[in-house]
């Protein structure tokens, strides 16, 4: 039963080396906020489920550099969706809900969770890896059917797409050295 593994699409070299390097430079120049979990928003209490910083990318941003990177990544994401739909034609893309640059510093992590939830209309999730000069920080999925963990190797410019639903709990393992940068996208 390889359904879970086969439903996680891994695409390499989605963005050129030069543009990844420029995006990383941009990420290093902006101010990040502490990222929260949906649980924290609901309970209004901090938890230790996630130690991450985020920076929103949006085409409604007042910064045209921010808008550029949103649109540039959206273009790559939409192309990747076409590949995803070759295997899963019943997925119909509606819109990008959110896009963020994530920064995991030393000891940063995100415990197992799923992206879909009440009031969260997320159907497809995506991560774009921007660097690999850090230790730890692996993106892992838990295959609940086979009771095993699937680890995605770190590769610059690699894009990973998967359904946001309860079949795909995933985590980012603690970063033990360096800083991990990625872009995350949720779509419906």
């Amino acid at each position: 039963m390889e359904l879970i593994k086969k439903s996680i699409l891994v695409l390499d070299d989605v963005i050129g080396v030069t543009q990844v390097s420029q995006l990383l430079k941009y990420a290093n120049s902006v101010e990040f906020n502490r990222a929260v979990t949906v649980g924290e928003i609901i309970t209004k209490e901090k938890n230790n489920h996630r130690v991450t910083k985020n920076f929103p990318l949006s085409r409604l941003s007042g910064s045209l550099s921010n808008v550029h990177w949103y649109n540039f990544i959206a273009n790559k994401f939409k192309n990747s969706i076409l590949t995803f739909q070759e295997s899963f034609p019943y997925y119909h893309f509606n819109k990008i809900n959110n896009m963020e640059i994530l920064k995991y510093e030393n000891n940063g992590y995100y415990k197992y969770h799923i992206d879909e939830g009440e009031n969260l209309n997320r159907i497809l999730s995506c991560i774009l890896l921007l660097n690999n000069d850090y230790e730890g920080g692996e993106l892992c999925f838990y295959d609940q059917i086979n009771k095993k963990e699937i680890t995605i190797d770190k590769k610059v410019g690699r894009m990973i797409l998967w359904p946001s639903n309860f079949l795909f709990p995933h985590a980012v393992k603690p970063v033990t050295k360096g800083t991990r940068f990625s872009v995350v996208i949720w779509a419906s």
Partner: protein
Amino acid sequence: MGQLKKDFKFKIIKNFLDDNERRLIKNYCTSYHINNQNNFDISQNNNGDTSKYSDPLMESLLLCKLSKIQEESGLKLLPTYSFWRMYTKFADLKPHKDRPSCECSVTVQIASDGTKWPIKIDGEEIILEDGDAALYWGTEVEHSREEFLGDYQSQVFLHYVDANGPFKEYIYDKRVFAGIDLEKNINF
């Protein structure tokens, strides 16, 4: 080539765009940029910034400014093509000379966030204000820009050739006329 062409390597044209032209084109470029998820220049620009060859508005500007550029250059000119770009943070312009269609080139600063960003022409640094232009001989004079540290700067290049010079066959960049994409040249 005309005699006057040898008199200077470049010249600054203050207020090349009047206020109405500048506002119109600024708003157009901003709107285009916000909506652009298809036209990214990854071959000549490190950020893959929003750019457009033969944009209808810029091609109109190319034609409208012909007499002004003839006056400034002292040459009878033929229009070749226009190209505009929304430069964003950390963009640069590597030192280069242009192709024959760019014999007489005009770089026009449409709008910016106010960050000074010198263009180096023939080794000399020039700072333009919004609405200003620099005229230079693109095929002969090396030009470049260091890394941009601001948020945005929209710029349009207007290109012409000497009507009596060696590149006169590059009129309209060898298209049937101005305002059409190269790849659509024979399919309209």
